[in-house]
């Protein structure tokens, strides 16, 4: 058939059941993204004869004779479409994966739709921004400062270097490359929560035309590892193999089929005949701990302990116990004691780009893995261990990454792709479907958290007890780290002489939990901050006052289950400011109930986070001067929407007296050098940025030295400018210094603390249970904010994601152990209509440890949100919700029961 694509007359031969999205991508129109493949997210939006459609739902053959316009057809870097320009000026994106679809859709809105934007945009999902920046783009707001308008670069709202590429659809995400000879891999997944694989017959699958090979457990190294990726591999239990003979959750990989096409690979999977011996399963952590419960990971105790599983026979991955003082004495000294149990549910990251990768062996015999990851270097190490290959023979890289939120601090697909490409000798691609992403990747650890607090009448805490039961699902990736981290800063933020902290993390036959924004803190902080609010009510003390009375202050030891970690310091302290900023803003909001059907109330919660994960986090940066006088900066860290790329350019530019536009950035590619532990724990700025600062400062010193020696002057006599050096009243072009290079490194060992305080004023509708947020205010202690626009975006995005989890998101597990809502239409994430604006306020602090005074601020805004919301609802209604989400049906039922009880 013939059709016009972005102005070009093209010939195409669609497959009968093919959707237009695939046809367009096959023809190289990579601006058309695959986010959900089901018409829910809008990332694939294109114009068909000028009308926006979800191209994933449009049968390709229906494009015959029609005009298709993708984001790349709207405009190009040299001639931006007004909507593209608007998104660029507002920086209406973070990871940018949804942006092409957003722009295409917005470009076609009429006046009426613009007037009711949230409804018009309900088919366009963004997981990063919380939509404020997108609304700004539609409204024509310019948030980005132009470079020449700024005197200094740090503290300014400079735009992301990838901006033009993102808004024109030319930024290359993982699969946005045409690879000759590409083959495709599909996975057969377990239908059982717990089963032993008895036999697998591959004959029929291998007979399917186009199928190249089938990989089963017989092809899998019996090397045990963890999908979790940490700097120190011993942080996680080695409980996974590439293809196992025991299925431990519905959705676990059973076998893989590699074929010429996705269709053939799917057909091959359908022809795999597997015999299982179904085993009894445990679906909840409580049942997993019951004596006699089936063991999810069975094996000789000494082997299991060697794999760092505490007590596999009893499904216990790890436990902790510790504290300070004498809890019983503290409780005895209390005038008021509060004790309750709180629950945080299973939620998912829902990054718009699913896990996806392309693997191949290049001409030099290097195994190349182009993947959507937060941790390219750690995946390289893991593949080297798995394949018993030298690290140097493996290259892992990512370009643009479509969101992560912790979900890509794992090796979930690269292992099987490596085996596949080594077997078939051709490039192999795997793109997880949205359903696979929901059902078979990772989620937040569900937790049951018991809190007991004792306080004197004046509010002084005398006792703080925390007991955590965490559900890691079928595998222990991040099980231990999340448990320990969750029990750390949430408790340490309070000054209290008597603390006791206990925790256990257990296996169940459910999809594995993993790293998730907040890394355990969102669950424990929901419990502790809710409990503090309940205590405040019992004491009749204002919740802000109660926090002020008990918050740690500079000089106090930070104590939780252990002693104070040696390398965490008060590099700066803005908690007091954050509390006051939120209190002032909330108290100015006096909106009252509009009728007796509504109750209005306010609530708050606070959170602390170490600015860097513990146990070492390494980064290196290299910067050099190119022949054309530009700087070339190479960093290892990946930017998956956090905006760290911009920050690196700003930090380097400041150190060199230059401008971000004079610096070319190369990143997240193990072939470039620049080792980095990865972009997790909000380290893109504080660890990698510090390495960049050191590299840039070292290079600046080298330039000055060279300039001085060239002119026989003192070293301090030169001044660096954007593109030249001024010395002895002469201007020497930077090109004269070509070849000068310097490296910087940081080891993440001195760590500071950052704070977040969230406040809400809410109205609760008794007849329906609906919660309306009248005011959302968030204060962040981010140190010196290097790019306020981006940092605000991180806070807004964190609050937005946390509101989804607090209000309605829940990954549900049915009686068979399967995820029952593996699609955006059943796992609802916030749309533009679901979110209130959030006032973002920054404490005025300067960190003595972080680069240029900055602290981390990516994951932590998530942490206080759920408790602040539940506290506001309790203030409004006198009904306490100790379990998230606070969905309307649940809220209504509790309010009704409360009313009936009088």
């Amino acid at each position, binding site marked *: 058939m013939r059709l016009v694509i972005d102005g070009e007359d093209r010939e195409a031969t669609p497959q009968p059941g093919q959707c237009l999205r695939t046809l367009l991508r096959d023809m190289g129109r990579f601006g058309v993204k695959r986010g959900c493949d089901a018409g829910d997210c809008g990332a694939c939006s294109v114009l068909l004869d000028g009308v926006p459609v979800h191209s994933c739902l449009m049968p390709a053959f229906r494009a015959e004779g029609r005009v298709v316009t993708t984001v790349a057809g709207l405009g190009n870097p040299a001639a931006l479409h007004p909507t593209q320009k608007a998104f660029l000026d507002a920086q209406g994106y973070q990871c940018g994966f949804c942006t092409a679809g957003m722009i295409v859709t917005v470009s076609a809105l009429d006046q009426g739709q613009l007037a009711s934007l949230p409804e018009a945009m309900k088919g366009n999902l963004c997981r990063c921004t919380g939509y404020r920046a997108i609304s700004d783009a539609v409204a024509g707001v310019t948030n980005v400062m132009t470079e020449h308008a700024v005197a200094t670069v740090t503290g300014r709202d400079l735009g992301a270097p990838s901006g033009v590429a993102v808004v024109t659809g030319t930024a290359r995400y993982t699969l946005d490359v045409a690879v000759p000879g590409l083959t495709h891999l599909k996975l057969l997944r377990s239908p059982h929560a717990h089963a032993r694989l008895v036999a697998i017959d591959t004959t029929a699958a291998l007979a399917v035309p186009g199928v190249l090979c089938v990989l089963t457990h017989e092809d899998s190294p019996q090397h045990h590892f963890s999908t979790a990726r940490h700097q120190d591999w011993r942080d996680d239990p080695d409980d996974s193999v590439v293809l196992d003979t025991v299925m431990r959750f519905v959705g676990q990989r059973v076998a893989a089929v590699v074929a010429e096409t996705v269709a053939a690979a799917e057909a091959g999977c359908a022809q795999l005949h597997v015999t299982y011996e179904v085993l009894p399963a445990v679906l909840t952590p409580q049942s997993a701990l019951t004596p006699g419960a089936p063991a999810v990971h069975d094996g000789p105790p000494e082997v299991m302990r060697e794999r760092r599983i505490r007590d596999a026979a009893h499904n216990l991955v790890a436990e902790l116990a510790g504290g300070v003082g004498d809890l019983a004495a503290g409780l005895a000294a209390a005038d008021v004691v509060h004790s309750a149990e709180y629950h945080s549910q299973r939620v998912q990251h829902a990054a718009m780009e699913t896990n996806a990768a392309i693997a191949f062996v290049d001409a030099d015999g290097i195994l190349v893995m182009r993947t959507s990851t937060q941790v390219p270097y750690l995946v390289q190490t893991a593949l080297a261990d798995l394949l018993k290959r030298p690290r140097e023979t493996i290259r892992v890289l990512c370009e643009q990454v479509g969101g992560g939120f912790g979900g890509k601090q794992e090796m979930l697909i690269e292992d099987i792709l490596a085996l596949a490409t080594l077997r078939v000798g051709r490039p192999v691609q795997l793109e997880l479907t949205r359903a696979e992403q929901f059902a078979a990747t990772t989620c937040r650890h569900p937790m049951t958290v018991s809190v007991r607090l004792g306080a004197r009448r004046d509010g002084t805490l005398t006792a703080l007890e925390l007991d955590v039961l965490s559900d890691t699902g079928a595998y222990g990736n991040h099980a231990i780290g999340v448990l320990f981290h969750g029990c750390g800063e949430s408790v340490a933020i309070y000054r209290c002489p008597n603390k006791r902290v206990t925790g256990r993390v257990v296996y169940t036959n459910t999809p594995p939990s993993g790293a998730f924004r907040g890394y355990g803190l969102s669950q424990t902080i929901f419990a502790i901050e809710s409990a503090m609010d309940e205590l405040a009510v019992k004491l009749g003390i204002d919740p802000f006052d109660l926090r002020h009375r008990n918050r740690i202050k500079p000089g106090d030891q930070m104590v939780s289950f252990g002693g104070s970690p040696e390398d965490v310091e008060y590099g700066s302290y803005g908690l007091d400011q954050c509390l006051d900023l939120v209190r002032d803003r909330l108290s100015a909001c006096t909106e009252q109930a509009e009728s007796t059907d509504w109750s209005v109330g306010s609530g708050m919660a606070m959170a602390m986070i170490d600015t860097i994960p513990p146990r070492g986090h390494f980064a290196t940066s290299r910067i050099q001067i190119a022949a054309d006088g530009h700087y070339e900066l190479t960093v290892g860290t990946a930017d998956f929407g956090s905006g760290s790329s911009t920050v690196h350019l700003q930090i380097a530019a400041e150190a060199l007296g230059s401008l971000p536009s004079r610096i070319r950035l190369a990143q997240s590619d193990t072939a470039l050098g620049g080792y980095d532990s990865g972009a997790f724990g909000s380290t893109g700025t504080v660890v990698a940025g510090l390495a960049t600062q050191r590299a840039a400062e070292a290079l600046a010193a080298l330039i000055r030295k060279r300039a001085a020696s060239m002119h026989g002057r003192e070293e301090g006599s030169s001044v660096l400018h954007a593109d030249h050096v001024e010395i002895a009243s002469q201007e020497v072009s930077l090109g004269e210094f070509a070849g000068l290079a310097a490296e910087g490194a940081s080891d993440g060992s001195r760590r500071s603390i950052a704070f977040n305080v969230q406040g809400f004023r809410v109205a609760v509708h008794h007849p329906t249970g609906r919660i309306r947020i009248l005011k959302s205010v968030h204060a962040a202690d981010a140190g010196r904010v290097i790019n306020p626009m981006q940092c605000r975006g991180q806070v807004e995005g964190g609050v937005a994601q946390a509101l989804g989890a607090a209000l309605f998101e829940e990954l549900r597990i049915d009686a068979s152990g399967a995820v029952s809502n593996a699609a955006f239409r*059943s796992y609802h994430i916030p749309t533009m209509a679901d979110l209130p604006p959030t006032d973002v306020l920054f404490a005025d602090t300067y960190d003595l440890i972080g680069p240029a005074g900055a602290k981390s601020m990516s994951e932590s805004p998530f942490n206080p949100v759920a408790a602040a919301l539940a506290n506001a609802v309790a203030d409004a209604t006198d009904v306490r919700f100790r379990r998230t989400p606070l969905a309307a049906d649940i809220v209504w*039922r509790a309010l009704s029961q409360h009313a009936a009880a009088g």
Partner: protein
Amino acid sequence: MDLNTVEAVLRPRMRSELPPSASGDSFLAGGTWLFSEPQPALRRLVDLSALRWESLRRTETALHVAATCTFAELEAFEAPVDWIAAELITSCCHALLGSFKIRGVATVGGNLCLGLAAGPMVALATALDGTCVIWSTDGGDRLLDAVEFVAGPGQTALRPGELLREILLPAAAFRRRTAFRQGSLTTYGRSAALLIGSRDGVGFTLTITAATPHPVRIVFDGFPESAELEARIDVEVPAWYDDIHGAPDWRRNLTHLLAQEIRLELSAP
């Protein structure tokens, strides 16, 4: 998404070219649902677009809505001034979970044939006393009251090979006063209860969808008092729907709440 098991697309141009029913076949209208979920059993698509049915046709007595009429086309219908109930069209179209981009492609017939509890076209057709015209496999037509069309979640009255041709909405129904209410767990989310009340000279009719596994139509001889309305709902609703989009007890509560709002709105004689 790609439906990779599909091997062929048939594009009949007239009824006589429709293939005999075969397993692995599916009619294709807008495709917005069909292409949104894996369909591993599908081998052949029978594309209805080449039949070129006129989307909307108004006569003195009825509005004929072709099964292939899109939401957007229906929404753009310009009703005569005395068809005051036509405002339901916009309300029901906007109640679709999918965006306006879906409404540009999704069809009225497709929405009915999904048999979803929350299908807004099911509500519209029921509330406007619609009649479904079904092409039988023997070449004849059969007519079915729209309230009978959806039997339960994913279940319709269509027999194998039958095809929904059009929905007749009688002009008289458009001349009644109506009130529309919809509730959802989230703003613009999937309907958890979608109710339409209509009032003519003598009686009052309440259509309940989304909160129930299939549409429920309750006909009152006169205009009911609050208590009567409440009692009849509890008697006539066989079960409250239970899925991820709302708990059954809450849906029941929401239904009563919205029903009373509708009663109030239409209470003036």
